Structures are given as structure tokens and as C-alpha cells.
């Protein structure tokens, strides 16, 4: 129901927004929303030295549109991802709840590699806000998570025909490169950080060596009337080792959703576009 409501509200708004844009050819924009469920593995050594595992839920909202940059070869993509997990320790004696939202924007240059195959790559930026809560810890019940990163992104599209339909296979990978991340110090309490406001290296320079993370999205799309049905797998591998604290959040979700393309002159399109 939530998915349907989001879809209902997002598509008409997107169409209206895109109608005002003055974009270079092909004047086509894509809006998509996907929901998914899967599994998650979380380690947060501020709360526990052990991995917690459980179920993960994810919603991804994506837009993509062309720009005038570099003779129209650069597209801009926005990704808004919300995820939440319910987790248990191995002994099933404690629970953790993890969740957060990430907003990312990427600028990607397009290469036409072969017939039906396109590759895009470029820089991006993203911000994350989230947290993990352990249901039995006392003065360290949770851990806040936040970062602002410069990312490197790349994706490949392959269009093909099968069963008299057009299909598009797409793979995207994002790697956080450098940025800033929030973390308490090794044994610092939140009472010190927030009640007494004692700063102790809580903002850290983050880079691909101390926060080696990746986000993957593999989808296959097929046209369905005026929209495009999309299935996929989202895999997020967030990691950090800051102030002596270890963190990872590996989640993999099976995704389903729809995409829709908008043009300035015509608002519907029945086949899969190359992005």
C-alpha cells in the first residue's frame, strides 16, 4: 500500500516538473521507484563485538535526466534510498534495529560502447543519516551514523530483444571516495558528546581506505504499457573503521518497481530507453 501511494504521488509530480525543463536532446527523463526486502548483516563494535543478522527493507527513488554538459553527454542521476533492518544476535538474546536514508546525486558521462551497450561513469556526492539501536544496552544503546561523501559511480546498460519485447539490463556501482563521517570516540559516551558537548574527534576524514564501501544495483526492465516494470537486486556494503570502532552493514534486497520516462513533447514512451 505504501509503495502504491508513493508511486501514485511521485509520477504525476515528476511529469509536471519535467515539463518545465529545457533539456538538450534526447529530452527524456526517467523516474523510478523500487521497493524490496532481503537480508542484512550488521556489526557495530560500539554496541557489540558480534554480527547481528536479520531482515532488511529498502525503498529506492531514482531520477535521471540529461544535461547540456559536454555536448549533452552527461546525465544527472539522483538516488534517494531508505532502508531499515530488524536484527538478532546469534544467540537470539538481543535485537538491534538499524536504518537510515541516503541521498545521492551523480553526474555521469556516457560512452556508446557497442550496439545496445552503453557505459556511464562519473563523480557523485551523497549524504547519509541513520542509526543502530540495541535493545538491551544501557548507556550505549545506539549509534548514530552520518556521512557526506564524494562518490565514484559507474553503470552499464544493455538493451536487447527477447520474446518480442525490448529488455534492458542495467548494473550500477557506487564507491564512496572521500568525505566526512560522524562517529563517537572509542569509549566516549553520548552523555559526554551531547549533554556535556565534549568534542573528541567525532568528525573524521573518511576515505575509501577507512570506509571501504560499495553500493550495487542490478536491474532488468521491460515495458508495460506507459511505464516500465523493473526487477532487481540492491546490495549495499557499508563499512567503516574510525576511532578504533568497527562497523559494517551488509544488506542485499530483492527489488521490484516501476520506471517511467518523460519527454517534453510527448509524455509516454513504450519502449526501453538506453538509460
Amino acid at each position, binding site marked *: 500500500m505504501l509503495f502504491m501511494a508513493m508511486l501514485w504521488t511521485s509520477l504525476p509530480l515528476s511529469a509536471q516538473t519535467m515539463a518545465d525543463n529545457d533539456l538538450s536532446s534526447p529530452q527524456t527523463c526517467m523516474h523510478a521507484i523500487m521497493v524490496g526486502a532481503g537480508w542484512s548483516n550488521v556489526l557495530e563494535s560500539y554496541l557489540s563485538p558480534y554480527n547481528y543478522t536479520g531482515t532488511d527493507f529498502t525503498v529506492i527513488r531514482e531520477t535521471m535526466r540529461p544535461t547540456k554538459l559536454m555536448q549533452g553527454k552527461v546525465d544527472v542521476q539522483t538516488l534517494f534510498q531508505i532502508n531499515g533492518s530488524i536484527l538478532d544476535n546469534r544467540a537470539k538474546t538481543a535485537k538491534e534495529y538499524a536504518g537510515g536514508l541516503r541521498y545521492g546525486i551523480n553526474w555521469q558521462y556516457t560512452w556508446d560502447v557497442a550496439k545496445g551497450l552503453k557505459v556511464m561513469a562519473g563523480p557523485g556526492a551523497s549524504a547519509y543519516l541513520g542509526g543502530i539501536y540495541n535493545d538491551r544496552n*544501557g*548507556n550505549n544503546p545506539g549509534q548514530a551514523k552520518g556521512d557526506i561523501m564524494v562518490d565514484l559511480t559507474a553503470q552499464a546498460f544493455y538493451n536487447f530483444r527477447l520474446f518480442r519485447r525490448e529488455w534492458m539490463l542495467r548494473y550500477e556501482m557506487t564507491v564512496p571516495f572521500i568525505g566526512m563521517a560522524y562517529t563517537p570516540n572509542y569509549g566516549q559516551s553520548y552523555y559526554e558528546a551531547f549533554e556535556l558537548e565534549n568534542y573528541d574527534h567525532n568528525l573524521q576524514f573518511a576515505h575509501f581506505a577507512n570506509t571501504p564501501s560499495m553500493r550495487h544495483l542490478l536491474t532488468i526492465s521491460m515495458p508495460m504499457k506507459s511505464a516500465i516494470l523493473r526487477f532487481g537486486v540492491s546490495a549495499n556494503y557499508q563499512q567503516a573503521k574510525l576511532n578504533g570502532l568497527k562497523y559494517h552493514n551488509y544488506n542485499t534486497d530483492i527489488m521490484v518497481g516501476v520506471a517511467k520516462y518523460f519527454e517534453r513533447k510527448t509524455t509516454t514512451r513504450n519502449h526501453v530507453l538506453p538509460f
Partner: protein
Amino acid sequence: MRRFTLYILALVIALTTSACIDEDDYDNSAKGNIEALWKIMDQHYCFFDYKKDIIGVDWDEVHQRYLAQANEKMTKAQLFEVCSNMLAELKDGHVNLYASHDMGRNWSFKEDHPNNFDENLVNDYYLGTDYSIAAGLSYKLLEDNVGYVRCESFSEALGNGNISDALYRLELCDGLIIDVRNNPGGNLTTSRRLASHFTNKKTLVGYIYHKTGKGRNDFSNEEEENIEPAQGIRWQKPVIVLANRSTYSAANDFVKCMKVMPNVTIVGDTTGGGSGMPMSSEIPAGWSVRYSAVVMLDKDHKHTEFGVAPDIQVDMTTTDHENNHDTIIETARAMLRKD
């Protein structure tokens, strides 16, 4: 440029995919649990040097002694007992092991000392039935015009409005008794909020620091802890704080703070201590472990882990108790009365 970009991308991907951040493998055997518990404490506990000086605990020797007791045929209850005994070596009320069937503890801070408090006596002969309740404060004006405030815990929310209203209703008394005997602690924010009604200026009450790494002496710099005067009523008359060995944790901190406030006298017994702010972790058996993680010192940079001494030491006498008199309350009343 394109080639350079590809090289950077390849380098980042190679580093990213090869760097898996994880903890050591999980060993849920008797030996694995004892080892894991020892290691968690070794890397996070904040009083090793102090405990070695005061009670002679050598954590490395403890490791050898308890690891030798590991036996894969031992039951869960036996393993729990061994683990609890290992933690008890530290004589720290904030160090506990929690399982569904038991809580490992060392409460020698209160069990090895006189009680100096009888709740029934206080309820029947001092508070009675006509006392007032402002959140976590029970209070009453005694017959000799001395205000009596009983604060049995700092776990309950206590706002400045509650405190101000209680103090306002006691404003005509000659002096105030704040009884925190048998108060096991609770929220530091709450205890500090109560203390803030007894000073007119920003007051240094101590220092705080935490672990910054796995080493036993990896600590942050000491940071000052100050109490700002409360917004609301600030008490200007004499105050006597009653303490005993069961005044612990945030209540111990309250006594530490009140000791530096003007017009305040501490009466009763030394507090139970518990100056390390506890945090939690767990061992492979799924049992939760609590340990002191953050050190809080008094204004003279001294530990209060084993308690704060009173200004006037008073113990409850058997004779008084038999006559339904609380010696410590009566001493405080006599000090505050204006005959």
C-alpha cells in the same frame, strides 16, 4: 585523463573489495566465552590501574586463573558462575553479567557494611502518609520546621518544575534534609539537575574522561564538569545530604557534587561509589556484560569509585532503631533546628 580516471577507479575498487571490516571469529565454547569476556573487559574497562593500586587486582593474572577453569563439560550455569566470579574480582557494582537465569555481580560496596537505613522506619515515622510527591521526590515539613526530601532513585524523570515546586513549598523551613540513602542511581542528568538548585554560580564539580583505544591506558584528556545554576528556585538555606553505602552511581555523583555546594553538609556513611559510567557489550553465549567505561573524578582529580566520605560520620544505633528513631535523620534535624 580518461586513462587516469580508470586507474583511480580500479584502485578504489581493488582497495574497497579487499578490505573487509569484521571482528574476530565467534567461539561459543566455555573457553571462548571466558576469553571473550576477559578481552571485552581488557579493552574497555576504565579502572585497571586504579584497582590494581587499591585492591591489588592484576587483570593478566585473573586471565590465567580463570582460563584454567574452562572445561567444555561445564553446564551453562557453571560457566556463568565462573564468568561472574572473574568479573567480581574487580569489586565494581557497575560490572555485571546478565543471563536470563541470573545476574552476576559484586555488591560488596554495600553488603560488607552496615545498612544505616530502614525504609519502613522512614515511611512509618518520618514521611507518614501525608507527604507530597513531586516526580521522584517525596517530601514533607517535619514538626520541628525542618524540610525532609526523600529521593530514592534518579531513574525517574525529575524536571526543574518539580524541584522548584517542592522547594517552594518547603521555603519556610529552617533547613533541608535530602535523603539519598539506598538510592542506587539512575540518570546523571537528573541528579545534576537536582544539584543545580543549590548553587548560585557555575560550579566545578569534577572531571570526566573516556577510553580512546584498546590499550588499558588509552584515555582522552580530562574535561571539566561544571554545574550551572538552575532556572527556577535556588535554595539558600542550610542543606544536609544523608548518604549510606547503598548510595551508588548517579547518587554517588550527586553527593560528590553537593559536597562542593555552599551551605551543604554530608551526613551519614561513606557512599557506595560507582563513579565509572557503565556501558554494555556481550559475549558469545548471548549474555550481556556491563562495565565501567567512562571515568568521573571529583574536583580535586580524585576517584570516587569507592565512595565519597561524609563530612560527619553517623551510623544508626540499635537503641535508636528500637525506639523508632533514625539516628542519621535525627542528627541532621538537630543540626538544622533553630531552637
